[in-house]
């Protein structure tokens, strides 16, 4: 369980986040939406332990976050920079396994297995820059999932992909989430996307000093699919509600 307790964050005198209190139960897929520049990425970096907490506290399963927590993975928006271009796709995916003290052969087979699960069977020996953007982000997702994190943070992961690829990856994420039950915090500026993938949507106000202005459970019937779900009246109503909150 992830808990944020009146979390505040500032850069110098400039307040970024103010009094954020949230509890994310295990297995929830929480979407954080807000206007660009409102501090969504700062929130994610604070949870990841990459930024020190200024006010309030972040805790995972009751343990306060001071450094990068164990069993945490992050997927960044800029896959081109987050992957290491000098390593092959397989080596990139195997990177987190070094911490687990696995031998070379085991790391390799684990990475191959993970690549297969994200739909990249046979791409292991190639290099990230030889793949399309969507495939590179799949590699980044495989790298994040390979050591079975209990908390996955995603910072606008599909923001720079074309519409078709983005929809494919949204469905991939939902499949992974259903199979793994990983707790996911998914940051996006896309209102449609947040309602489509989220179990719950939290809207942050425009900065400076962003606060939570809406905390909405997403109860959509049945298994989600790109065409059907987006046409449901419930979906349209939820999207409108989130949209109004984002616009203030």
């Amino acid at each position: 369980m992830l808990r944020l307790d009146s979390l505040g964050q500032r850069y110098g005198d400039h307040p970024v986040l103010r009094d954020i209190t949230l509890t994310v139960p295990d297995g929830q897929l929480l979407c954080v939406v807000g206007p660009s520049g409102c501090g969504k990425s700062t929130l994610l970096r604070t949870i990841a332990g990459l930024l020190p907490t200024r006010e309030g506290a972040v805790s995972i399963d009751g343990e306060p976050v001071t450094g990068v927590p164990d069993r945490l993975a992050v997927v960044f928006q800029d896959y081109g920079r987050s992957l290491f271009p000098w390593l092959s796709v397989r080596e990139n995916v195997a990177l987190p396994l070094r911490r687990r003290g696995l031998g070379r052969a085991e790391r390799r087979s684990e990475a191959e297995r993970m690549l297969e699960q994200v739909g990249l069977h046979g791409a292991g020996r190639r290099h990230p820059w030889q793949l399309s953007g969507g495939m590179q982000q799949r590699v980044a997702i495989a790298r994040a999932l390979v050591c079975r994190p209990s908390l996955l943070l995603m910072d606008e992961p599909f923001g720079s992909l074309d519409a078709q690829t983005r929809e494919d990856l949204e469905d991939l994420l939902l499949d992974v989430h259903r199979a793994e039950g990983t707790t996911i915090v998914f940051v996006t500026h896309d209102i449609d996307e947040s309602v489509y993938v989220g179990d719950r949507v939290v809207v942050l106000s425009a900065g400076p000093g962003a606060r939570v202005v809406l905390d909405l459970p997403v109860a959509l019937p049945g298994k989600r699919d790109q065409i059907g779900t987006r046409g449901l009246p419930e979906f349209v109503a939820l999207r409108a509600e989130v949209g109004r909150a984002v616009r203030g």
Partner: protein
Amino acid sequence: MRWVGDLKPVRRLRTRPFRPIRGFGGGAPEDGTGRGGGGESRRATPARGALLRWTVLAAAVAAWQLTTRTHDSVYFPPPAEIARHTHDLWFSGPATHAFLTPEATDNILPSLARMATGFALAAATGIALGTALGRSRRAYALCNPVLQFARAIPPPALVPVFVVIFDFGTQMQLASIVFSAIWPVLINTAEGARNIDPLRLEVAAVLRLTTTERLWLLLLPSALPRIFAGLRLSLSLSLILMVFSELLPGTANGIGFTLTDAQSRSDLLTVWAVLVLLGALGYVLNTGLLAVEKRLLGRGRPT
């Protein structure tokens, strides 16, 4: 946290066929195998380029031969004569010695050994110090003026200092090479290590790589293009300082020694042969380093 089975439901995504994006006439295939074709026409270009380069070189040598033949000056022997002399002097030895004459084994090989040792020492120290400097903002800020000052000194001007410290001989020559060749590789490595993408450092933090892993998997590969830019400069400085340090009195062998010795005997043919040899050596060494760079960096890798 649960991990259910081996993720059967996700597998089906692998077989999802590629559908072109409407209105764009097709997008990037997502199947993990497709690669651009058209290698045929691209392959022809380097071959033609090489042919053109060799033609220009041949034309230059032919013009040189023609001009020197018509003027018939003792100071400017024709290239054919220089080539014959080069062969007689160094490369007419027995097959058991790789066709090298005693003249070659006594002079060219010691020179190359000194240069290789000096360059290797400079490269190893430069990369190690440069990485350390580049990773510490404070150390870099403090040392940068010193580095810029050290780099600004024309390397041959250092040689007299080492003559005084070490007296003439191999030690002085090695010191001259190392202290000249170290700066470009050190400064470039520090620059490369300093300019690592901050997002990649965050990724390393999230992956909780150890210091050693960060060095080998992130810092050095990131800095590699800059390191090689420095190594190329250092290599040519090593060659210059190798010859220069051998020009001084007190040296008993070496390519530089052959040069001054021939000059004192007014043996211009040997002087020219040495110049051609040095040019060829510089070219071969640089080409070798470029090949290593290409092998390590890979083709088309973005930085």
